[in-house]
Protein backbone atom coordinates (compact mmCIF):
# COMPACT_ATOMS: atom_id res chain seq x y z
CA UNK A 1 0.00 0.00 0.00
CA UNK A 2 1.46 3.38 -1.06
CA UNK A 3 1.25 5.79 1.84
CA UNK A 4 1.04 9.55 1.50
CA UNK A 5 1.60 11.19 4.87
CA UNK A 6 0.38 14.55 6.12
CA UNK A 7 2.66 15.75 8.92
CA UNK A 8 1.05 18.34 11.18
CA UNK A 9 3.24 20.20 13.67
CA UNK A 10 3.69 23.91 14.44
CA UNK A 11 7.45 23.34 14.88
CA UNK A 12 9.38 23.41 11.61
CA UNK A 13 12.15 21.44 13.34
CA UNK A 14 9.77 18.64 14.35
CA UNK A 15 8.25 18.43 10.87
CA UNK A 16 11.73 18.03 9.39
CA UNK A 17 12.67 15.40 11.99
CA UNK A 18 9.51 13.39 11.28
CA UNK A 19 10.14 13.64 7.52
CA UNK A 20 13.79 12.58 7.90
CA UNK A 21 12.69 9.64 10.06
CA UNK A 22 10.07 8.63 7.47
CA UNK A 23 12.73 8.75 4.75
CA UNK A 24 14.99 6.64 6.94
CA UNK A 25 12.34 3.92 7.15
CA UNK A 26 11.64 4.01 3.42
CA UNK A 27 8.71 6.43 2.98
CA UNK A 28 9.03 9.27 0.50
CA UNK A 29 5.56 10.71 -0.08
CA UNK A 30 4.46 13.42 2.34
CA UNK A 31 3.12 16.93 2.75
CA UNK A 32 3.08 19.30 5.74
CA UNK A 33 0.78 21.57 7.74
CA UNK A 34 1.59 23.93 10.62
CA UNK A 35 -1.70 23.51 12.54
CA UNK A 36 -5.04 21.73 12.57
CA UNK A 37 -6.81 24.31 10.42
CA UNK A 38 -4.23 24.05 7.61
CA UNK A 39 -4.33 20.24 7.95
CA UNK A 40 -8.08 20.11 7.34
CA UNK A 41 -7.68 22.31 4.24
CA UNK A 42 -4.99 19.97 2.89
CA UNK A 43 -6.98 16.83 3.67
CA UNK A 44 -10.01 18.19 1.85
CA UNK A 45 -8.01 19.37 -1.18
CA UNK A 46 -5.78 16.29 -1.50
CA UNK A 47 -7.67 12.97 -1.34
CA UNK A 48 -4.45 11.00 -1.93
CA UNK A 49 -3.36 11.70 1.68
CA UNK A 50 -4.02 8.42 3.48
CA UNK A 51 -2.08 8.75 6.75
CA UNK A 52 -1.96 11.57 9.29
CA UNK A 53 0.84 12.18 11.78
CA UNK A 54 -0.04 15.01 14.15
CA UNK A 55 1.30 16.86 17.17
CA UNK A 56 -1.07 17.77 20.03
CA UNK A 57 -0.03 21.28 21.16
CA UNK A 58 -0.57 23.63 18.24
CA UNK A 59 -2.05 27.11 17.85
CA UNK A 60 -5.45 27.73 16.23
CA UNK A 61 -6.75 24.14 16.06
CA UNK A 62 -4.95 21.67 18.36
CA UNK A 63 -4.05 18.13 17.37
CA UNK A 64 -6.79 16.69 19.58
CA UNK A 65 -9.41 18.99 18.03
CA UNK A 66 -8.11 17.99 14.61
CA UNK A 67 -8.59 14.29 15.46
CA UNK A 68 -12.13 14.94 16.74
CA UNK A 69 -12.93 16.96 13.65
CA UNK A 70 -11.67 14.21 11.33
CA UNK A 71 -13.51 11.46 13.20
CA UNK A 72 -16.77 13.38 12.94
CA UNK A 73 -16.40 13.95 9.19
CA UNK A 74 -17.99 11.14 7.19
CA UNK A 75 -15.47 11.50 4.33
CA UNK A 76 -12.36 11.54 6.54
CA UNK A 77 -13.41 9.47 9.56
CA UNK A 78 -11.48 6.33 8.57
CA UNK A 79 -8.16 8.15 8.07
CA UNK A 80 -5.37 6.46 10.08
CA UNK A 81 -4.03 8.89 12.70
CA UNK A 82 -0.78 8.67 14.64
CA UNK A 83 -0.27 11.28 17.36
CA UNK A 84 3.36 12.29 18.10
CA UNK A 85 3.50 14.56 21.14
CA UNK A 86 5.38 15.55 24.30
CA UNK A 87 2.27 14.75 26.37
CA UNK A 88 3.03 11.54 28.23
CA UNK A 89 0.58 11.75 31.15
CA UNK A 90 -1.86 8.86 31.47
CA UNK A 91 -4.93 11.10 31.26
CA UNK A 92 -3.62 12.70 28.05
CA UNK A 93 -3.04 9.31 26.43
CA UNK A 94 -6.52 8.14 27.44
CA UNK A 95 -8.07 11.37 26.12
CA UNK A 96 -6.34 10.86 22.77
CA UNK A 97 -7.43 7.22 22.59
CA UNK A 98 -10.98 8.24 23.42
CA UNK A 99 -10.80 10.73 20.54
CA UNK A 100 -9.90 7.67 18.44
CA UNK A 101 -6.29 8.16 17.44
CA UNK A 102 -4.98 4.88 16.03
CA UNK A 103 -1.72 5.05 17.93
CA UNK A 104 0.38 7.41 20.02
CA UNK A 105 4.09 8.24 20.30
CA UNK A 106 5.73 10.31 23.04
CA UNK A 107 8.61 12.59 21.98
CA UNK A 108 11.52 12.11 21.78
CA UNK A 109 10.95 9.18 19.41
CA UNK A 110 13.14 7.00 17.21
CA UNK A 111 12.55 5.91 13.58
CA UNK A 112 12.18 2.34 14.88
CA UNK A 113 9.22 3.30 17.08
CA UNK A 114 7.75 5.32 14.21
CA UNK A 115 8.06 2.33 11.86
CA UNK A 116 6.54 -0.02 14.44
CA UNK A 117 3.48 2.20 15.01
CA UNK A 118 2.93 2.86 11.29
CA UNK A 119 3.11 -0.87 10.57
CA UNK A 120 0.70 -1.63 13.43
CA UNK A 121 -1.80 0.92 12.11
CA UNK A 122 -1.49 -0.19 8.49
CA UNK A 123 -1.89 -3.86 9.43
CA UNK A 124 -5.14 -3.16 11.34
CA UNK A 125 -6.63 -0.67 8.89
CA UNK A 126 -8.89 -2.04 6.16
CA UNK A 127 -7.53 -1.32 2.66
Amino acid at each position, binding site marked *: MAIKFLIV*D*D*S*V*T*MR*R*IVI*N*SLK*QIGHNDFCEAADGREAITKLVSDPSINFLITD*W*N*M*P*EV*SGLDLVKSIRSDSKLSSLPILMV*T*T*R*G*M*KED*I*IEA*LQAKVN*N*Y*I*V*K*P*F*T*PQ*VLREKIEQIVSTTPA
Partner: protein
Amino acid sequence: MQSNMEQIFKKLGDLKDFFTYGQKLAPILQKIIDFMQDTVPLLETVNKSIADSTSKMPKAAHQINNVTSATEVATTEILDIVDGVMLDLGEISSQINSFQVKFDKQQTLLVKIAEKYPRDEDVKKLIMNEFDSKYFSDDVKDLSKLVSKINDSMMNITLSLQVQDITTQQLLSVNHLIQSIQEKLSSLLVDLGEKEITAIDERFNNNLSFNPEARYEKNHSSQVLVDSLVEENRSAASQKEIDELFSKR
Protein backbone atom coordinates in the same frame (compact mmCIF):
# COMPACT_ATOMS: atom_id res chain seq x y z
CA MET B 1 -27.06 60.83 99.96
CA GLN B 2 -24.80 58.05 101.20
CA SER B 3 -25.61 55.84 98.25
CA ASN B 4 -24.84 58.73 95.87
CA MET B 5 -21.45 59.21 97.48
CA GLU B 6 -20.80 55.47 97.21
CA GLN B 7 -21.59 55.65 93.49
CA ILE B 8 -19.26 58.65 93.03
CA PHE B 9 -16.43 56.79 94.82
CA LYS B 10 -17.08 53.73 92.70
CA LYS B 11 -16.93 55.81 89.51
CA LEU B 12 -13.74 57.49 90.73
CA GLY B 13 -12.31 54.02 91.40
CA ASP B 14 -13.19 52.93 87.84
CA LEU B 15 -11.59 56.12 86.51
CA LYS B 16 -8.45 55.41 88.53
CA ASP B 17 -8.34 51.86 87.13
CA PHE B 18 -8.74 53.26 83.61
CA PHE B 19 -5.86 55.71 84.14
CA THR B 20 -3.69 52.98 85.64
CA TYR B 21 -4.48 50.77 82.62
CA GLY B 22 -3.81 53.72 80.29
CA GLN B 23 -0.43 54.29 81.96
CA LYS B 24 0.44 50.66 81.31
CA LEU B 25 -0.84 50.84 77.71
CA ALA B 26 0.95 54.07 76.79
CA PRO B 27 4.44 52.55 76.29
CA ILE B 28 2.95 49.71 74.22
CA LEU B 29 1.11 52.23 72.03
CA GLN B 30 4.34 54.21 71.70
CA LYS B 31 6.15 51.05 70.60
CA ILE B 32 3.44 50.36 68.01
CA ILE B 33 3.74 53.93 66.70
CA ASP B 34 7.55 53.62 66.55
CA PHE B 35 7.23 50.30 64.75
CA MET B 36 4.79 51.78 62.23
CA GLN B 37 7.15 54.68 61.62
CA ASP B 38 10.02 52.27 61.02
CA THR B 39 7.87 50.05 58.78
CA VAL B 40 6.61 52.74 56.38
CA PRO B 41 9.99 53.31 54.66
CA LEU B 42 10.48 49.53 54.56
CA LEU B 43 7.09 49.08 52.91
CA GLU B 44 7.96 51.83 50.47
CA THR B 45 11.20 50.01 49.62
CA VAL B 46 9.30 46.74 49.14
CA ASN B 47 6.76 48.55 46.96
CA LYS B 48 9.52 50.12 44.87
CA SER B 49 11.31 46.80 44.58
CA ILE B 50 8.12 45.02 43.41
CA ALA B 51 7.47 47.83 40.91
CA ASP B 52 11.05 47.57 39.68
CA SER B 53 10.88 43.76 39.31
CA THR B 54 7.49 43.95 37.64
CA SER B 55 8.73 46.46 35.10
CA LYS B 56 11.65 44.15 34.28
CA MET B 57 9.39 41.14 33.57
CA PRO B 58 8.50 42.11 29.98
CA LYS B 59 12.23 42.29 29.21
CA ALA B 60 12.79 38.85 30.76
CA ALA B 61 9.90 37.43 28.71
CA HIS B 62 11.29 39.07 25.58
CA GLN B 63 14.73 37.57 26.24
CA ILE B 64 13.24 34.10 26.69
CA ASN B 65 11.50 34.52 23.34
CA ASN B 66 14.79 35.58 21.78
CA VAL B 67 16.40 32.40 23.12
CA THR B 68 13.57 30.32 21.62
CA SER B 69 13.96 32.01 18.23
CA ALA B 70 17.75 31.68 18.30
CA THR B 71 17.62 27.97 19.10
CA GLU B 72 15.09 27.43 16.33
CA VAL B 73 17.36 29.18 13.82
CA ALA B 74 20.39 27.22 15.07
CA THR B 75 18.46 23.94 14.91
CA THR B 76 17.36 24.67 11.35
CA GLU B 77 20.99 25.39 10.41
CA ILE B 78 22.14 22.11 11.97
CA LEU B 79 19.36 20.24 10.16
CA ASP B 80 20.40 21.88 6.87
CA ILE B 81 23.99 20.72 7.41
CA VAL B 82 22.90 17.23 8.47
CA ASP B 83 20.63 16.96 5.40
CA GLY B 84 23.57 18.07 3.22
CA VAL B 85 25.88 15.46 4.75
CA MET B 86 23.22 12.74 4.35
CA LEU B 87 22.75 13.73 0.72
CA ASP B 88 26.52 13.50 0.18
CA LEU B 89 26.58 10.12 1.91
CA GLY B 90 23.85 8.92 -0.43
CA GLU B 91 25.97 10.09 -3.36
CA ILE B 92 29.04 8.28 -1.95
CA SER B 93 26.96 5.10 -1.50
CA SER B 94 25.78 5.17 -5.09
CA GLN B 95 29.37 5.84 -6.28
CA ILE B 96 30.58 2.83 -4.29
CA ASN B 97 27.84 0.71 -5.86
CA SER B 98 28.77 1.90 -9.32
CA PHE B 99 32.47 1.12 -8.63
CA GLN B 100 31.40 -2.35 -7.58
CA VAL B 101 29.43 -2.82 -10.81
CA LYS B 102 32.37 -1.59 -12.90
CA PHE B 103 34.73 -3.88 -11.02
CA ASP B 104 32.43 -6.87 -11.54
CA LYS B 105 32.36 -6.12 -15.29
CA GLN B 106 36.14 -5.83 -15.34
CA GLN B 107 36.42 -9.14 -13.52
CA THR B 108 34.17 -10.85 -16.08
CA LEU B 109 36.25 -9.37 -18.90
CA LEU B 110 39.51 -10.57 -17.35
CA VAL B 111 38.08 -14.07 -16.89
CA LYS B 112 37.10 -14.11 -20.57
CA ILE B 113 40.59 -12.94 -21.62
CA ALA B 114 42.18 -15.64 -19.44
CA GLU B 115 39.92 -18.24 -21.01
CA LYS B 116 40.85 -17.04 -24.52
CA TYR B 117 44.60 -17.27 -23.90
CA PRO B 118 44.96 -20.26 -21.58
CA ARG B 119 48.61 -20.93 -22.50
CA ASP B 120 49.86 -17.35 -22.52
CA GLU B 121 51.84 -16.92 -19.26
CA ASP B 122 52.26 -13.17 -19.75
CA VAL B 123 48.50 -12.66 -19.98
CA LYS B 124 48.04 -14.87 -16.90
CA LYS B 125 50.57 -12.81 -14.91
CA LEU B 126 49.01 -9.54 -16.05
CA ILE B 127 45.56 -10.73 -15.06
CA MET B 128 46.77 -12.02 -11.67
CA ASN B 129 48.29 -8.60 -10.95
CA GLU B 130 45.07 -6.76 -11.81
CA PHE B 131 42.77 -9.40 -10.43
CA ASP B 132 43.00 -8.74 -6.70
CA SER B 133 39.26 -9.02 -6.19
CA LYS B 134 39.32 -9.93 -2.49
CA TYR B 135 41.32 -6.81 -1.62
CA PHE B 136 38.93 -4.58 -3.56
CA SER B 137 35.84 -6.25 -2.19
CA ASP B 138 37.03 -5.81 1.43
CA ASP B 139 37.75 -2.15 0.74
CA VAL B 140 34.26 -1.62 -0.65
CA LYS B 141 32.71 -3.36 2.34
CA ASP B 142 34.71 -1.24 4.79
CA LEU B 143 33.79 1.91 2.95
CA SER B 144 30.10 0.96 2.88
CA LYS B 145 30.20 0.22 6.62
CA LEU B 146 31.78 3.59 7.29
CA VAL B 147 29.17 5.41 5.19
CA SER B 148 26.40 3.55 7.01
CA LYS B 149 27.95 4.44 10.40
CA ILE B 150 28.19 8.15 9.49
CA ASN B 151 24.60 8.00 8.22
CA ASP B 152 23.44 6.53 11.56
CA SER B 153 25.33 9.24 13.46
CA MET B 154 23.69 11.93 11.32
CA MET B 155 20.29 10.40 12.05
CA ASN B 156 21.06 10.39 15.78
CA ILE B 157 21.97 14.09 15.59
CA THR B 158 18.65 14.74 13.82
CA LEU B 159 16.72 12.85 16.49
CA SER B 160 18.53 14.64 19.32
CA LEU B 161 17.30 17.94 17.87
CA GLN B 162 13.85 17.03 19.16
CA VAL B 163 15.15 18.66 22.33
CA GLN B 164 14.55 22.05 20.63
CA ASP B 165 10.79 21.46 20.40
CA ILE B 166 10.66 20.16 23.97
CA THR B 167 12.66 23.06 25.48
CA THR B 168 10.60 25.55 23.45
CA GLN B 169 7.48 24.24 25.16
CA GLN B 170 9.17 24.53 28.56
CA LEU B 171 10.24 28.13 27.81
CA LEU B 172 6.73 29.02 26.62
CA SER B 173 5.45 27.64 29.89
CA VAL B 174 7.94 29.82 31.86
CA ASN B 175 6.87 32.87 29.85
CA HIS B 176 3.23 32.14 30.57
CA LEU B 177 4.08 31.96 34.28
CA ILE B 178 5.99 35.27 34.13
CA GLN B 179 3.04 36.89 32.39
CA SER B 180 0.59 35.64 35.05
CA ILE B 181 2.81 36.90 37.91
CA GLN B 182 3.33 40.24 36.16
CA GLU B 183 -0.40 40.72 35.68
CA LYS B 184 -1.09 40.01 39.39
CA LEU B 185 1.73 42.27 40.62
CA SER B 186 0.72 45.06 38.22
CA SER B 187 -2.84 45.03 39.51
CA LEU B 188 -1.54 45.03 43.13
CA LEU B 189 0.73 48.01 42.38
CA VAL B 190 -2.10 49.91 40.69
CA ASP B 191 -4.19 49.31 43.83
CA LEU B 192 -1.31 50.75 45.90
CA GLY B 193 -1.36 53.90 43.78
CA GLU B 194 1.44 53.14 41.32
CA LYS B 195 1.00 54.24 37.73
CA GLU B 196 0.18 51.65 35.06
CA ILE B 197 2.96 49.06 34.59
CA THR B 198 4.04 48.11 31.06
CA ALA B 199 2.46 44.77 30.21
CA ILE B 200 4.28 41.88 28.51
CA ASP B 201 3.85 42.02 24.75
CA GLU B 202 0.76 39.92 24.09
CA ARG B 203 2.19 38.74 20.75
CA PHE B 204 4.55 36.44 22.62
CA ASN B 205 2.04 34.46 24.57
CA ASN B 206 -1.31 34.82 22.88
CA ASN B 207 -2.60 31.92 20.91
CA LEU B 208 0.29 29.66 21.87
CA SER B 209 -0.15 26.09 22.91
CA PHE B 210 2.42 24.27 25.00
CA ASN B 211 2.86 21.36 27.35
CA PRO B 212 4.38 22.54 30.66
CA GLU B 213 5.21 18.90 31.46
CA ALA B 214 7.34 18.44 28.30
CA ARG B 215 10.50 16.43 29.14
CA TYR B 216 13.47 15.24 27.13
CA GLU B 217 13.73 11.67 28.40
CA LYS B 218 15.42 9.01 26.36
CA ASN B 219 14.44 6.11 28.63
CA HIS B 220 11.08 5.98 26.82
CA SER B 221 9.18 5.14 30.02
CA SER B 222 6.22 7.22 28.77
CA GLN B 223 6.15 5.17 25.55
CA VAL B 224 5.90 1.99 27.63
CA LEU B 225 2.84 3.48 29.37
CA VAL B 226 1.38 4.49 25.99
CA ASP B 227 1.88 1.00 24.59
CA SER B 228 0.16 -0.64 27.54
CA LEU B 229 -2.79 1.78 27.36
CA VAL B 230 -3.09 1.34 23.58
CA GLU B 231 -3.04 -2.43 24.10
CA GLU B 232 -5.75 -2.16 26.81
CA ASN B 233 -7.79 0.00 24.48
CA ARG B 234 -7.36 -2.49 21.65
CA SER B 235 -8.40 -5.38 23.90
CA ALA B 236 -11.46 -3.42 24.93
CA ALA B 237 -12.33 -2.95 21.27
CA SER B 238 -11.87 -6.65 20.65
CA GLN B 239 -14.18 -7.45 23.55
CA LYS B 240 -16.77 -5.16 22.02
CA GLU B 241 -16.40 -6.98 18.72
CA ILE B 242 -16.78 -10.33 20.51
CA ASP B 243 -19.92 -9.06 22.25
CA GLU B 244 -21.34 -7.90 18.94
CA LEU B 245 -20.53 -11.26 17.42
CA PHE B 246 -22.32 -13.11 20.22
CA SER B 247 -25.32 -10.80 20.06
CA LYS B 248 -25.79 -11.73 16.39
CA ARG B 249 -26.27 -15.41 17.25
